[in-house]
C-alpha cells in the first residue's frame, strides 16, 4: 500500500516537474504568443482533422466535392468528372467564387501523386477559410483516380 502510494507520488512529482518545465519553456523562450486569444482561436480552427480517402471511397460517396488543385493545363487535359478546379497558386482568388459551393460540405482535395503535400496544404487552407465541414485529400492523387478507372473529363470546369 505504502509502496503504491509512493509510486503514485513519484509519478505525480514527475508530471509536475514536466509541466513546470513546459511552462518555463513557453514563457521564457519567446512563445508567449501561444497564450494570446488570437493564437488560441487559430489553434482551435486548425484542429479540424484531415482525412485521406481512396478514389474508390470518393466515387461511392456523392456528398463529397472533389477540388482539383493542379494547374489549369493539367486540369484541362484530364480531371475527375465533376471536380471543381481551384489552382493552388490562386486559391485566395478562386475561393471568393467557390466559397458558397464549398461551405458546410465535405471536400476532398486532389493533386498530382507527387504533390500530396500541396493537397494537404490546400485542404488545411479550405478548413481554415472556406468553412467546409470536413476536408481530406485523395490518396495517390490524380494518378490513383485515373488508374482506378474512375470517370474523368476533359476541358475546364
Amino acid at each position, binding site marked *: 500500500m505504502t509502496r503504491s502510494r509512493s*509510486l*503514485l507520488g*513519484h*509519478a505525480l*512529482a*514527475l*508530471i509536475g*516537474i*514536466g*509541466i*513546470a*518545465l*513546459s*511552462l*518555463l*519553456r*513557453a514563457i521564457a523562450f519567446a*512563445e508567449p*504568443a*501561444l497564450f494570446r486569444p488570437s*493564437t*488560441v482561436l487559430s*489553434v*482551435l480552427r*486548425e*484542429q*479540424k*482533422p*484531415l*482525412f*485521406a*480517402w481512396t478514389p474508390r*471511397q470518393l466515387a461511392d460517396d456523392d456528398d463529397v466535392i472533389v477540388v482539383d488543385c493542379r494547374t489549369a493545363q493539367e486540369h484541362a487535359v484530364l480531371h475527375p468528372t465533376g471536380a471543381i478546379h481551384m489552382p493552388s497558386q490562386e486559391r485566395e482568388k478562386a475561393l471568393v467564387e467557390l466559397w458558397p459551393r464549398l461551405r458546410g460540405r465535405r471536400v476532398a482535395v486532389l493533386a498530382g501523386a507527387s504533390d500530396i503535400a500541396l493537397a*494537404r496544404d490546400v485542404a488545411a487552407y479550405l478548413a481554415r477559410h472556406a468553412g467546409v465541414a470536413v476536408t*481530406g*485529400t485523395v490518396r495517390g492523387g490524380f494518378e490513383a483516380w485515373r488508374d482506378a478507372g474512375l470517370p474523368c473529363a476533359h476541358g475546364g470546369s
Partner: protein
Amino acid sequence: MPRLAFLMRLAVGSVLLVAGALKAGSMENTVTSIGRFDVLPHWLVLPVGLALPGIEVTIGAALLCGVMPRAAALLATCFAATFLVFVVAAMARDLDVECGCFGESVLLRANGRLLAFDVALLVAATVGCLRAGEGSPHEASGA
C-alpha cells in the same frame, strides 16, 4: 532479464528525451498535431500540447538517470499506450495526419510504420516497467 529491462528503459528514456526536446522547439506545431488526431476534446488540446514536451523530457531524463525509475517507467508505458491509441484511432478513421512525435524535424505520418514504432516503444516500456528497479545502478545501490 534485469539487464534487458535496464537497456529497455535506457532506450525508451532516450526516445522520450529526444522527442520531448524536439517538440519543445515547435510547441505550436505540437498543439496542432495533437488537435488533428481528433481524439481529445478541443478544450484539452492546448494544455496537453503545451505540457507534453516538458513531461516527456522529464520522464526521459528520469529513466536515463535512474531517478524514480519505477514511476518513470510506469508513466512511459502509459504514454506509449496513449500514443498507440492515437495512431490506431487515426488509421481506423483514414485520417491524414503527421504525428508530430519528433516536432517538425522528423515528420512521421500515422501509418503502419508509425504503428510498428509505437508497438515497439510500448513493449520496451512495459518490459522496463515490469522489471523497474532491477538492473539499474541507482536501484541496485538501494536508492
